C-alpha cells in the first residue's frame, strides 16, 4: 500500500516536473542580462524550498521522537533528511553554476553561501553520525538532538541576505508567470520528496527488522 502511494506520488511529481520543463524552455520569456542561465533559477530556488521543508519535517519528527521514544519517528526523520540532502546538494550546485556566469566565480564566501554550505555539511554530518552509532535507541536520541541543533542554521541561511550585505541577490519582484512556474516546480519537487522519503522510510523499517532478527537467539550462531 505504501509502495503504491510512493510510486503514484513519484509519477505525479515526474509529470509535473516534465510539464514545467516545457514551461521553462518554451513559454518563459528570456532574461535580458543573463541569457539562458537564468532558467536555472526555476530549479535552484524550489530545490532550496524543498530542502528546507524536508529539514523542517526532520526537526519535527526528531522532536516527536524525543517526546515519545517511538522509533518510527526516528525512521521518518532520517528518511526526510536524506532526501533533503539531495535537494540541498542540487540547490548549492545550481547556485554555483549560475554564479560562475553571473559573478564570474564558482563560489563567494558571503554570508548566504557560507551558511548554506554549513547547512549541507550539517545534514551530511547527521547521516554520517548515524552510521557511527550501532545501538538503535542511542543512535535515534543523539541524531534527534543533532537534527534540532542543525535546524538552527536554516533561519540563518534564509535571513542572511537581509541581515548582511551579500554577493547573493536580494529577494526580487518577479512577474506572476515566473512565480507560477517556480511554485509549480516546488510542488513537483515536494511530490518527488514525499515519494522518495516514503521509499526510504520503508527501507529503514525493513533494516530495523533485519537488525532485530540478528539478535534473535535462533540466529545468534549463524555463519
Amino acid at each position: 500500500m505504501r509502495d503504491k502511494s510512493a510510486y503514484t506520488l513519484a509519477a505525479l511529481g515526474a509529470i509535473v516536473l516534465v510539464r514545467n520543463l516545457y514551461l521553462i524552455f518554451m513559454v518563459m520569456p528570456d532574461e535580458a542580462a543573463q541569457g539562458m542561465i537564468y532558467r536555472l533559477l526555476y530549479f535552484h530556488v524550489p530545490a532550496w524550498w524543498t530542502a528546507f521543508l524536508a529539514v523542517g519535517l526532520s526537526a519535527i519528527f526528531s522532536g516527536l521522537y524525543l517526546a515519545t521514544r517511538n522509533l518510527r519517528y526516528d525512521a521518518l526523520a532520517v528518511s526526510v533528511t536524506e532526501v533533503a540532502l539531495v535537494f540541498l546538494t542540487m540547490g548549492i550546485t545550481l547556485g554555483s553554476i549560475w554564479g560562475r556566469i553571473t559573478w564570474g566565480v564558482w563560489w563567494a564566501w558571503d554570508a548566504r553561501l557560507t551558511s548554506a554550505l554549513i547547512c549541507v555539511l550539517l545534514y551530511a554530518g547527521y547521516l554520517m553520525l548515524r552510521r557511527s552509532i550501532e545501538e538503535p535507541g542511542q543512535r535515534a536520541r543523539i541524531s534527534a538532538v543533532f537534527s534540532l541543533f542543525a535546524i538552527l542554521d536554516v533561519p540563518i541561511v534564509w535571513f542572511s541576505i537581509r541581515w548582511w550585505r551579500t554577493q547573493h541577490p536580494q529577494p526580487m519582484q518577479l512577474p506572476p508567470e515566473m512565480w507560477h512556474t517556480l511554485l509549480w516546480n516546488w510542488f513537483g519537487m515536494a511530490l518527488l520528496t514525499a515519494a522518495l522519503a516514503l521509499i526510504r522510510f520503508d527501507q529503514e523499517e525493513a533494516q530495523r527488522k533485519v537488525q532485530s532478527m540478528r539478535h534473535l537467539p535462533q540466529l545468534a550462531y549463524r555463519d
Partner: protein
Amino acid sequence: MDSRNFAFMFYGFTAAWLIVFVYVLTLVRRGSRIRAELKRHEALLERRI
C-alpha cells in the same frame, strides 16, 4: 530564444537530474540489499525453529 550561456545552463540541468538519478540508484540498490538480507534471515530462522 536567447541562447547565451546555453552550455552552463545545460550543465546545471544535467547536474540537477544527475543528483536525483544517483540518489534513486542508491535507493534501489539499498532496497534490494535489504530485501535479500531479510529473506536470508527469514529462511535461516525457519530452518532453525
